[in-house]
């Protein structure tokens, strides 16, 4: 029978993950499956943010996990696995995006769901959404990725810097630029709707 369900500390989780990585290095399929289960949603989130398209994001996640496995021997012991994997996924997503841009086949991001509200509120929200979407589309790619990964997905500055292979200062710069643009949109909308 199992002992009391004590919460797992971050240190224990890291050690557990380090054990999984060592097992994967030895070819343990169950350990790899466990890592996939733990990280695929976040990896998909990053890929989706960068690509704006589900199918491509799924492909990039699969490729990212395989690439991580192929170079797992170079993975430094004691480092967290998640950011390392996300960096690989983000790299692949960015490369795919560049390739797609060359083919002029950039897809329009999939639509959004709306909650239950009055028609006037719904119209207002819809307008704000549209304006923010337009503003996001006008942003340079790096600014949009940084602001989405930071403000929506909750990644930290250093995590984004590692993922997108940028200096932290560059991440700050992009975040600052994106926020300025988007806050202006929000401010104009507030003034108009009051």
């Amino acid at each position, binding site marked *: 029978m199992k002992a009391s369900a004590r919460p797992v500390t971050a240190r224990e989780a890291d050690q557990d993950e380090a054990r999984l990585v060592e097992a*994967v290095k030895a070819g343990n399929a169950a350990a790899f499956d466990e890592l996939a289960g733990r990280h695929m949603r976040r990896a*998909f989130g990053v890929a989706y943010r960068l690509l704006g398209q589900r199918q491509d994001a799924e492909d990039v996640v699969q490729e990212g996990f*395989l690439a991580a*496995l192929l170079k797992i021997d170079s993975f430094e012991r004691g480092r967290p696995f998640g950011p390392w994997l996300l960096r690989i996924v983000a790299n692949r997503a960015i490369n795919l995006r560049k390739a797609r841009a060359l083919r002029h086949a950039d897809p329009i991001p*999939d*639509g959004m769901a709306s909650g239950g509200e009055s028609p006037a509120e719904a119209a207002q929200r819809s307008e704000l*959404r549209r304006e*923010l979407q337009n503003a996001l589309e006008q942003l340079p790619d790096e600014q949009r990725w940084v602001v*989405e990964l930071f403000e929506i997905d909750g990644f930290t500055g250093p995590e984004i810097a590692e993922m997108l292979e940028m200096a932290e200062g560059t991440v700050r710069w992009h975040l600052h630029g994106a926020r300025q643009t988007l806050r202006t949109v*929000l401010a104009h909308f507030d003034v108009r709707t009051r």
Partner: protein
Amino acid sequence: MTDELFRRDPELGAALAEATADPTNEGVDWAELRRAINARASLELTRRRARRRRVLIAIPASLAAGIALFVLVSRAPGRSDLGAPANSVAGTETSIDELLDANVSDGQFRALLSGADEANDLLSIAAGEGQP
């Protein structure tokens, strides 16, 4: 340096979350994605298991071979060990019985039995000085 910039802006975050699609609500079949990830990795995982098996077999085999080689070398009759107790004064193999019958002093006898391997000791024995 305090990092004001890396503080989240809840209002902007909420507005952006509403304006952009939530990746986790994109109708992803997570079980299928996990299966596909595992399927693509299976060949590499099999290769790694095979490589590990080879290493696990190779290490004890090399160890065993090394030990066997050491034993063989240490027992080799032609070993040029001046102090080997089984070597006679004349340099040929000598049995314990021959040694007992040999006409040598006590010191020489002890030196031969103990395997004294210092050249000076052996010279002393040869010069008939007795104790090594």
